[in-house]
């Protein structure tokens, strides 16, 4: 393969945009994924990513910015979940399941009713190659905002995730931190929607964090690592999709999964091989200890 061929994607404007926008979204999602995985909000991320679909549809029909519709829809779903959870003894995962599928179903129905205006495929699977300049601007704004909030508040959010009771005992605004994390989750979901689509957003928000978790025991490092993994896989995935002529979202998430598998097997402490080594060491040491 010649160098010219390898550099070919960079000669198209739409590819260049797709590459750097994907990288940016990958980095932001990866950064946030550390909090989502440790807070145990993975299911919540999945739910929000589906719940934004009717918002996207309605915004498109009304000629409003898609991000606005998606964001509103996601927050409505989150509010509905906490309301239903508060008022019924139904378990949380069931509540989340009921609410997000309701939103998603409404979205699908809406799209099928207006097939001329709405493209089901691009909402569900994303279409980064055809992203409009206005959407790029929104994406950048959302990303900058998320990174800024996390940079300023990550230690508070860390305490809130690890030990909310201690946060409360210290007089930290726990409810506001909860809302902050929820807003960040909704905003990044909306941002990532256009890159990989509603279905695969959740992978961007979980897999890098889960992978980083296997690689380090320090929270700060986990955030940096998750972000780096997210950025790299998004870039490489978008790049590979040019040659494979496959879905960008699919390429990105497959790469992220590969990264997770590598960490799962070769992780220095939590990997399968490390665990086996530790067991073997224990077996070697044990007879020496016995009298």
């Amino acid at each position, binding site marked *: 393969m010649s160098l010219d061929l390898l550099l070919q994607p960079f000669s198209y404007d739409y590819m260049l945009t797709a590459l750097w926008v994907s990288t940016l979204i990958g980095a932001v999602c990866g950064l946030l994924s550390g909090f989502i995985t440790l807070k145990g909000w993975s299911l919540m991320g999945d739910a929000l990513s589906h719940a934004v679909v009717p918002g996207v549809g309605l915004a498109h029909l009304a000629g409003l910015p898609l991000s606005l519709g998606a964001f509103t829809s996601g927050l409505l779903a989150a509010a509905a979940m906490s309301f239903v959870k508060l008022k019924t003894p139904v378990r949380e995962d069931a509540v989340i399941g009921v609410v997000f599928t309701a939103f998603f179903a409404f979205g699908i129905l809406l799209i099928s009713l207006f097939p001329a205006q709405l493209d089901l495929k691009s909402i569900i699977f994303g279409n980064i190659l055809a992203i409009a300049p206005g959407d790029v601007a929104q994406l950048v704004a959302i990303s900058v905002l998320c990174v800024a909030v996390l940079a*300023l508040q990550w230690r*508070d959010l*860390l305490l809130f995730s690890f030990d909310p*009771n*201690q946060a409360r005992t*210290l*007089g930290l605004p726990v409810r506001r931190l909860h809302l902050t994390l929820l807003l960040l989750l909704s905003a990044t979901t909306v941002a990532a929607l256009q890159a990989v689509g509603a279905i695969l957003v959740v992978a961007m928000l979980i897999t890098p964090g889960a992978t980083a*978790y296997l690689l380090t*025991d320090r929270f700060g490092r986990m955030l940096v690592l998750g972000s780096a993994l997210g950025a790299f896989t998004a870039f490489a995935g978008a790049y590979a999709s040019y040659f494979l002529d496959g879905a960008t979202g699919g390429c990105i998430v497959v790469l992220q999964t590969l990264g997770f598998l590598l960490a799962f097997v070769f992780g220095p402490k939590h990997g399968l091989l490390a665990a086996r080594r530790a067991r073997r060491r224990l077996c070697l040491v044990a007879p020496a200890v016995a009298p």
Partner: protein
Amino acid sequence: MTPAPDRPLTLAARGVTVTYPNGHVALTDATFALGGGTICALVGVNGSGKSTLFKALMGFVVPSAGAVTISDEPVRTAQRRGWVAYVPQAEEVDWTFPVNVHDVVMMGRYGYMNFLRIPRAADRDAVADALRRVGLWDLRDRQIGELSGGQKKRVFVARALAQQGRVILLDEPFTGVDVKTEEAIVALLRELRAEGRLILVSTHNLGSVPEFCDQVVLINRTVLACGPTSEVFTADNLQRAFGGALRHFDLSRSTVEEHDGRQVTVLTDDERPLVLGQGGHLEYRDRSAHEKLVADREAGKT
């Protein structure tokens, strides 16, 4: 008015009633008051409202009637000043979280830091002091899940120390902890009491209460009794608090024979037994701090 930095704080609950959103009334009209420089046990069966009272003291639940005050300030104000420190039960903590011992103890210092929570020299010193005091300095870089049961408990005690909490609440500190760690924690709590701190320990381990708690709050849906251990910890009161939930073992005159030197040994697998004398008064294993009480009893008898 703010009490002077070194003056011990007071903790008071006045007519505290807690009703949960589902209508369950967990606690009714609970009233007690404590002054600093004390280790007080909060004793009651499961479901007696013990943890609810704890939550009310920490401001996690808002009483539907009555109020909790700390040196006449509402709980919220006390929290902002970093007065209240909390040592959680081991089950409440996610031990797989990617934080090390030092990180967790540093979380006690958040109240002293600025908006960005970047530690200063004073914060590092406080954390180092706290870690040395509980004997975990050498393990400061360990991920918290790699600690033993006793070490895990001490991390959170160290966090309360680093916070310089003046009201320290410990939730079941001795469950799942070996005897050696229990003794180490008790020794540390006694030091903290001597420094004028108010320590409240929720426990169902009756036997250890007389050993280190000078006061007791006995609860069963309300405060049944509160005051010095020797007055509150009587057979009658405990019967009221626990009902039929306690196993009884009367060592009758035939067991405690003269030829045994009037000495019997009680063995239990886990918790310390509570031993009461004739008429239901407390028997202390270590009488050194209670000579006056024993002398009074002798005088009363004759």
